[in-house]
């Protein structure tokens, strides 16, 4: 049992999807099965937590089975494994995914249009997300990464709003462009690294662990730092870093590659917006921490300032664009861009605080953004109108809704006592420290980024003032819409989210116990390997 | 009596065949152009064979080319006949159901 926990986590939803597809159409079982599977995953995750040892660094609960092993004559052997495991980076994100999928399934309870397909796709997406966070083999990771694309495309394209086709295609193309860049680097890595435990013939392994170890780089290969291959005057290793950075940056999303996000959010149904914001964006940050930085530490040390710069641009631009938004959902989408900028800044600092802060921010933003999108969904369900200017004085009409919104806004703008505050504080600490510790990024980045906090407070408070305070008024084309307060199902979704933000805000140790060992080893490996490789390049 | 003049004739026949194929708008005439090109090749094969008297490769090849030329003509005319039945013309320009 113990050793199959992760596989269970990944394959449960796939089995669920099959069951949903096989069941006759027109029944209501689909959503029940989806919920059942999500809850079972919750159970599995509790077992995982019990089995996970926080005192250890490195991968745990590993499962490894030979998947592809091809003898390639002069090439040696190409090997890909089914290799899943957890560490302090994966575990919080897996937990977040399990939790968010339960919420998203409940939130999809009232989907009317072809239920069977919807829940089947939701379950497939579930499996892909779990797999992405667990995979420790590059090919396996890429497989799950790509596999998220189609379910998401159809979920937005079929169940979305008025401009769903445009939004889904834009989403698809952006993500695909990113994944092709990642693919190029994957091929280069495959050809340039060997497995650490090979005997005699060269074994080209996809294992990320093997690729991280700079001793495994084959001499005279494309990515060999000693060979120092250049393309247009820039080292191939730097190119590879840039490709990966762009590929994951699109997912994150980072300004200026973010334009797919507002459109996708505005058109997607509520549950899908929740998944998109809470989970899919995290894959960008996860990729940076898992692949981009550890695999190209030398290039990372050269270009961290660029990563930080894009982080700060995202923070400021996202906040400004949020302020200018008239549509509530678009506002929240842009606030996501702003918040994910902190992840970039944290990663770029390559300090324990910064890296831990980045992971913390990912989890925290996952919870808070889920809450925000659910709240928008609640309002949209009732009035089919998301324009901020059409509402005022909602607090008197929907007091419970107002209190949840207030809480979510405060959490999002980073008020102390909420998880967002902890995350942002850690990122700032890391960014300030970085120049002194490793000299990667300048303090000014951190200072400019604080501007993002001020702007965040400004647009949230302004929105509160416009929508909830004052005299009740609702301008609508259909007059007889009744604005009722939250029902039990909605509270069931929102309450756990609210509790979790508060819990992580007050007891950061809950999360940091898992994250810190990872953040330490991440910082150490990147800095040491980076310096070692740079020493090779410039002796 | 030199082989050079044969090569020149062959090149000439091939070029004329090519021009007919490119220029003429009648399927049957294009077919004739193709026959000219095949014959140019045959002429080459037989002439080159003269330089290797030990074998008859070139001549045998030319023989197969002739057989295939007959096959091609038969197939081509069968198709042209059917096209004519549908379109009442054998001029490809007037046949344009398929959008290019």
């Amino acid at each position, binding site marked *: 049992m113990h050793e199959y926990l992760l596989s269970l986590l990944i394959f449960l939803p796939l089995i669920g999807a099959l069951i949903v597809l096989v069941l006759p159409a027109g029944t209501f079982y689909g959503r029940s099965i989806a919920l059942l599977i999500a809850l079972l995953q919750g159970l599995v995750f509790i077992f995982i937590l019990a089995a996970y040892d926080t005192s250890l660094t490195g991968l745990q609960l590993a499962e490894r089975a030979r*998947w*592809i092993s*091809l*003898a*390639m*004559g002069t*090439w040696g052997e190409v090997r890909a494994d089914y290799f899943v495991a957890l560490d302090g980076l994966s575990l919080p994100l897996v937990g977040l995914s399990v939790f968010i999928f339960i919420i998203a399934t409940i939130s999809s309870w009232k989907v009317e249009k072809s239920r069977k*397909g919807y829940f089947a796709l939701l379950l497939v997406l579930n499996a892909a997300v779990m797999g992405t966070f667990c995979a420790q083999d590059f090919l396996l990771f890429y*497989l799950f990464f*790509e*596999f998220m694309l*189609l379910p998401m495309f*159809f979920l937005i394209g079929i169940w979305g709003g008025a401009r*769903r*086709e445009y939004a889904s*295609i834009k989403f698809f*193309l952006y993500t*695909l*462009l990113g994944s*092709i860049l990642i693919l*190029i680097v994957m*091929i*280069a890595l495959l*050809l340039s690294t060997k497995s650490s435990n090979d005997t005699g013939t060269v074994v080209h392994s996809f294992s990320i662990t093997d690729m991280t170890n700079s001793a495994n780089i084959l001499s005279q*290969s494309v990515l060999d730092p000693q060979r120092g291959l250049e393309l247009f005057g820039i080292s191939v290793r730097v190119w590879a870093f840039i490709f990966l950075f762009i590929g994951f940056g699109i997912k994150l999303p980072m300004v200026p590659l973010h334009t797919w996000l507002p459109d996708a959010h505005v058109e997607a149904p509520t549950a899908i917006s929740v998944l998109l914001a809470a989970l899919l964006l995290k894959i960008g940050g996860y990729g940076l921490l898992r692949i981009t930085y550890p695999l190209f530490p030398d290039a990372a040390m050269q270009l961290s300032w660029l990563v930080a710069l894009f982080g700060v641009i995202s923070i400021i631009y996202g906040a400004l664009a949020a302020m200018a938004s008239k549509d509530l959902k678009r506002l929240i989408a842009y606030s996501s861009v702003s918040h994910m900028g902190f992840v970039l800044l944290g990663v770029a600092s390559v300090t324990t605080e910064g890296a831990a802060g980045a992971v913390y921010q990912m989890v925290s933003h996952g919870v808070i953004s889920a809450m925000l999108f659910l709240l928008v969904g609640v309002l949209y369900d009732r009035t089919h109108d998301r324009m901020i200017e059409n509402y005022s004085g909602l607090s008197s009409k929907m007091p419970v809704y107002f209190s949840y919104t207030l809480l979510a806004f405060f959490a999002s703008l980073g008020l102390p006592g909420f998880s967002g505050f902890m995350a942002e504080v850690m990122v700032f600490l890391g960014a300030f420290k970085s120049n002194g510790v490793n000299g990667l990024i300048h303090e000014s980045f951190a200072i400019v980024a604080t501007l993002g906090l001020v702007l965040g407070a400004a647009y949230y408070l302004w929105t509160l003032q416009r929508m909830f305070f004052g005299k009740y008024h609702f301008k609508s084309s259909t007059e007889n819409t009744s604005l009722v307060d939250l029902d039990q199902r909605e509270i069931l979704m929102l309450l756990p989210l609210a509790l979790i933000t508060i819990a992580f805000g007050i007891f950061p140790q809950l999360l940091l116990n898992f994250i810190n060992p990872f953040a330490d080893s991440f910082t150490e490996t990147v800095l040491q390997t980076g310096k070692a490789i740079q020493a090779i390049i410039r002796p | 009596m030199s082989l050079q003049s044969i090569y020149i004739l062959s090149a000439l026949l091939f070029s004329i*065949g090519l021009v007919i*194929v490119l220029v003429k708008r009648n399927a049957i005439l*294009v*077919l004739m152009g*193709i026959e000219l*090109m*095949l014959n*140019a*090749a*045959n002429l*080459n*094969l037989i002439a*080159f064979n003269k330089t290797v008297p030990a074998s008859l*490769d*070139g001549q045998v*090849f030319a023989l*197969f*080319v002739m057989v*295939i030329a007959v*096959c*091609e003509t038969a*197939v*081509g005319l069968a*198709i*042209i006949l*059917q*096209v004519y039945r*549908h*379109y009442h013309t054998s001029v*490809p320009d007037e*046949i*344009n*159901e*398929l959008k*290019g």
Partner: protein
Amino acid sequence: MLGTNEKLEWIQLSLKYFLPELVLVGAFLILLLSSLVLNKGHQKKSIDWIALLLLMATLMASVISWNQTTANIPLFSGMLTQSTFAVYLKLLFDVAGVLTVLLSWKAYEYRKAEYYALVTCALLGAHVLVMSSNLIMVFLAIELISLPSYLLTAFVFSKKSMEGALKYFLFGSVASAIMLYGMSLLYGITHTFDFTSEVFAKAIYYQQTPFFFISVCLILAGLLFKIASTPMHPWAPDVYEAAPSPIVAFFSVVPKLAGIGILVLFCLAIDLKGNSSIRWYIVLSLIAILTLSIGNFAALLQKNPKRMMAYSSIAQAGILLIGAITLTNQGLQFMLFYATVFLLANYLVFLYIGHFERKSIVDMESYAGIGKSNAASSILLLVGLISLTGLPPTAGFLAKVFVFSSLWNSYEISGQGLYLVVFVVGLLNTVVSLFFYLKIPYQSFLKNGSNTVPSENSWGVNLLGFLLVITLLGLFFLPSGLMGWLNRITFAL
């Protein structure tokens, strides 16, 4: 020189290795006879079964000869060479033949026996073509494929299909005449037709002249016509639109792979193990780049699924060429892997294009809303298109990764900038290809159809589609078995 008796003995010995082709000839004759007996009356339906059994038998014979073959064996006085490479391609052709019969099941009833006989004849041509080591055989085999192909295009007997057949015929005959002229010039240079012989190699080694280059280019023109590769591709869209869809599937796989096969063998011969002073990889790379780009960009504009697939198959030929240009063992093995996957995915797509065609869904637009009324079919079609695009989790992805990896590896070893250009163009084209491959799924899932298409009982089609999908997925998750087979193939001439 061998005496007549030795030659006769050689012929007798050769027959042992010639079993699949003999079965094919037998199948051809049986089908001809049954056309006399069975075409009238209600026994017509048995023709499908007869053809299926005969082609299955051919497949079995090819499997047997695959197990027999370990090294290159010259057959029929050196006219042919039996090699693992050829036998593997023959296996692919036979699979394609069986699938063609299954796709034609219960359709195109008029003159069915002749129809199958012509398919058999073209298959025979493909078999012989990939074994050829003599230009006479190359020419004859290409005609054995081409002439039945012209006729098969006409087998819808409509105005359109006749026009397609005429265009195909005229273009094809000109191409083969040009190729023949090239062969005659090459004969003048080398004084032999056997391009695997030492005489040939010696002759061209001392004559790396522009004249030699031109005569080879003329020959390549004919081969590229069969592959439907730029600049000899313009016939493809018209023919694909006109021909019966099982035949289109056949055209886009069998002649193409046979053409690639002989192109590889011929290029290996003229490349002189890299000693040629003419850099043939440059020519092949340029052709591959052009083919890929023209195929993909032209496919974007198409409104008819069959025309779109025509351009798609042109682009796929480009990727097959990418596998071939390096002329290394590795690249060619991956090219064969790609060819296998391409065959399966292509037949899967044409299975459904033909299936929907019979429900009079011909245009892209008329696919709108089919995802609802024919959910199973649409999903299986989607998998086929995804595999052609090269996205996971289908074997198409792995195949593309393999082909591009070997290209990259060649770049790394040789440092030829051109390989890198091909690499980049190839990857960019993959993005472009996504736009048109997903057009049909886009219509069928995201658009609402005005008139709902009846979801008729199509379990037979879906069963076949499902099997193909399972194979495509299986090859992604467990490619080791197939790669193990391909590793047996070596390309020493």
